[in-house]
């Protein structure tokens, strides 16, 4: 498995389109167990990313690209998801500084750093019905060279069944069981595009 700078750029452009497509769905889920802005937040952030990436085609390496994306998300998304998605890309940037293509351990450790970053920033862990529940199985599959698509789907499906204990969704306790977490869904959209960018 290998991730090139150009493929990551393409994946992010595609992810931006996916966020737009699912904007209303993300917002409606957030109305159910949050405050009804997740689609709006993701759209604002990823449209800003798209604009940046359309303005600049060539990046020196994964680090430079990830840093721009992370800073853009931090500056435009807001809410809980802004710092979290921003942190993901800032961690990518730190791990892949000067790296044009990541593979093997270098690839995995970027994702591991990102997940650690989310957990530290959000003071959260797997099993709390957040985006973490999609990132965790994805990374496990990446490490074990398992089926990434399947991992994302499984994570998403499992996170739907459990009770929220972090973020706004936690206010609704038991009632969150059976409702899809909006951040888990947006993460699955992003990870599905990243998966497309990874190839042997």
């Amino acid at each position, binding site marked *: 498995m290998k991730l090139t700078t150009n493929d990551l750029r393409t994946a992010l452009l595609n992810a931006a389109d996916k966020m737009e497509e699912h904007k209303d769905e993300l917002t409606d889920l957030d109305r159910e167990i949050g405050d009804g802005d997740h689609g709006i937040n993701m759209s604002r952030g990823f449209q800003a990313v798209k604009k940046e990436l359309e303005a600049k085609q060539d990046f020196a390496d994964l680090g430079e690209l990830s840093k721009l994306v992370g800073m853009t998300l931090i500056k435009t998304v807001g809410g809980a998801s802004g710092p*979290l998605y921003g942190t993901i890309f800032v961690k990518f940037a730190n791990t892949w500084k000067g790296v044009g293509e990541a593979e093997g351990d270098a690839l995995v450790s970027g994702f591991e750093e990102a997940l650690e970053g989310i957990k530290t920033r959000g003071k959260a862990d797997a099993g709390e019905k957040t985006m973490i529940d999609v990132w965790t199985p994805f990374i496990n599959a990446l490490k074990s060279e398992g089926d990434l698509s399947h991992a994302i789907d499984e994570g998403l499906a499992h996170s739907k069944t459990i009770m929220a204990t972090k973020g*706004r969704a936690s206010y609704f306790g038991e009632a969150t069981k059976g409702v899809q977490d909006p951040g888990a869904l947006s993460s699955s959209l992003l990870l599905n595009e990243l998966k497309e960018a990874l190839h042997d």
Partner: protein
Amino acid sequence: MDKLMQDANRFVSDMVEGLVLAHPDFYEKVEGVNVVKRKDGVSGKVGLVSGGGSGHEPAHAGFIGEGMLSAAVCGEVFTSPTPDMVLEGIKAADGGKGVLLVVKNYAGDVMNFDMAKELAEMEGIEVDTVVVNDDIAIKKESDRRGVAGTVFVHKVAGAAAQEGRSLSEVKAVAEKVISRVRSMGMALSPCYMPESGKPGFELHPDEMEIGIGIHGEKGVERKAIAPVEDIVRELVDRLTNEVTDKKIALMLNGMGGTPISELYLTYKYVHEQLIAKGYDIVRPYVGNYMTSLEMHGFSLTLLPVDDEILGLLDAPTKAIGFHS
């Protein structure tokens, strides 16, 4: 959707512009971001910054002014502002004696304000944070939201800063208020998000929500609309379970779409029930302080006071949104 607006994407920036145009001698907008600061500055005193998502007006910009906030950071509607915006607020509030951030307890606010604090410290500004979590609708204390009680924190900490107290002293009195203040709210009807045009929750006209948040989050209980005396009893009983000190300041806060007539009418029952339980309401505040767009409902906040808090509550402030 029934809203006076030009373009949902400009809801916050138009509002901030209008606020500054209406009070040009009082407010100043920080160039390029939706951050508002005191025009008269804060030199030589601890600066006070608050903010969060917009939609809670007069919070937070309405509490800017001598004796209260130094700057307010106005995020998108119900969306925590980004760290770079908060950083601008911190810079605007820095008068050389450090800056206290008054944050409401939401994952997003806590994370974004924390990141901003880190950025400000890198620029050499001393920053400290308090997190308000007064909403007893949520059982787990660490998850409790910051709601109208935040306004008492602004008032008390702002007066302490104005007195010339140090950052750690201002923080200490803010934390004293936070440890004591408790709130709970209800809604007869939801609020509608400017961008999606959708209500925070769907509510049958004959139903109400008890224990709502201030971001269109539905309540913890849904019931048939009851006479106000019964609604008040539910909130008063739950609050007095937690607040046992009897000498209190009280805030009866409208949610944005509640007419003043209904607030005062409601206050009658609040007053009667608390007096009957032996409370001494030394300072009642009735009005719109921490709203949720055009939501129709109210929240009730109780703050046990001592002489220090009372003196700081009574200290004058020029903030246009805080009336006693």
